């Protein structure tokens, strides 16, 4: 069951389109899995649409509009063909991903073993952000760390806990330097998450601290 959602404010900004693209991507993928947030966004969109209906506008004939209308109706209509639903594959296991992430499946690199039972596949989204699918096998753990920047995570499939909470498929997490956590999965089928970070992680305990100089190579 989904327990962790974006805030009402984030969902409103998302509905309005006034939000950073990376946040929007993870929120959109969350909404694809969460009927409750989907409904909230739909209701907000309806409200914003009302604003357009009620806006003060001069409806008199305007040459610029006449020209625009003629140009548009001279355009061909489009037929969009649906794609086949792409899925994420790891070791013969297939995972469905939410619709907004499907376009990125083909931009996803090969899986590499990070440590122990944790796997990572980089997703090319461009810009200064780094996105990954991360898969924790049962018993797999990411060493305790905090965040220099922001980390956005969506649980795509499975469950994991991090010492702060327990998360399930569809949960939306936003972590920053306030949060220290050590994600690990005890689920029989492990856990697949999608995550975007803008700065490398910072490991906080034990030998894992030795990873810090290299963390930009792995966990960024």
């Amino acid at each position, binding site marked *: 069951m989904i327990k962790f959602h974006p805030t009402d404010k984030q969902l409103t900004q998302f509905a309005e389109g006034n939000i950073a693209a990376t946040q929007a991507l993870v929120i959109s993928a969350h909404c694809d899995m969460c009927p409750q947030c989907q409904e909230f966004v739909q209701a907000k969109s309806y409200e914003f649409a009302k604003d357009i209906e009620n806006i003060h506008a001069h409806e008199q004939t305007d040459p610029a509009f006449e020209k625009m209308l003629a140009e548009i109706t001279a*355009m061909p209509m489009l037929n969009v063909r649906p794609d086949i639903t792409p899925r994420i594959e790891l070791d013969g296991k297939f995972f469905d991903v939410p619709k907004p992430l499907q376009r990125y499946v083909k931009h996803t690199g090969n899986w590499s073993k990070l440590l122990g039972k944790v796997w990572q596949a980089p997703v090319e989204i461009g810009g200064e952000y780094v996105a990954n699918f991360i898969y924790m096998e049962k018993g797999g753990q990411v060493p305790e760390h905090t965040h220099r920047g922001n980390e956005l995570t969506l649980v795509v499939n499975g469950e994991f806990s991090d010492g702060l909470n327990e998360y399930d498929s569809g949960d939306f997490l936003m972590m920053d330097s306030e949060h220290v956590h050590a994600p690990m999965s005890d689920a029989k089928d492990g856990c697949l998450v999608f995550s975007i970070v803008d700065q490398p992680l910072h490991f906080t305990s034990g030998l894992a601290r030795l990873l810090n100089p290299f963390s930009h190579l792995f966990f960024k």
Partner: protein
Amino acid sequence: MLIGMTLDNSKNNCKPAEVADEMSEALVEVANERCKRSYAKVFSYFAPRLRSYALKQMGNEALAMEMVQDTMANVWQKAHLFDASKGSPSTWIFTIARNIRFDMLRKLQNRKEDICSDDLWPVLCEQTPDANETSLDEQITLEQVGQLFENLPDKQRAVIEAIYLDGKSQQEVADQLSIPLGTVKSRTRLALQRLKDMLEDHD
């Protein structure tokens, strides 16, 4: 032929629900018949409103008009994606305008991430008829489906069972049955179409 087509003022005083119905009908006519007259009706109602809205958002007349043009062009070209059961015409058109604005602003800010509005708010994407499609299933009982299912040809039923009951991928089914992937896909498509036809007859 569009010369002399005046923008219609009379809609101003109509009740919102009536406007919504009228606009819905017009959009359906645009989608089905490429009806320019119906499109002009939608255009004359929304274009001036979108301009006022865009001016507030973009603060610049040229950008505002670009936003109106792109939005209304999408309405013309993709009218077949409007689904009245999922929301009002104004909500649909608002979401298109929002997406256009989002992409315009990102372009102006020179953002490098390969993320575009169609991924974030897929208002202009065809709904994929895939395994996740549940809307049809929800409308009838499981028992009814079971009965219809029995009527499928054996080969189609085997594929549907493996995919939808056992949760196998199409590739896995192809391997298991030693048939080409393309055959699995076409059997799935045929079976789903057949089930859909049977359900429609059922009503």
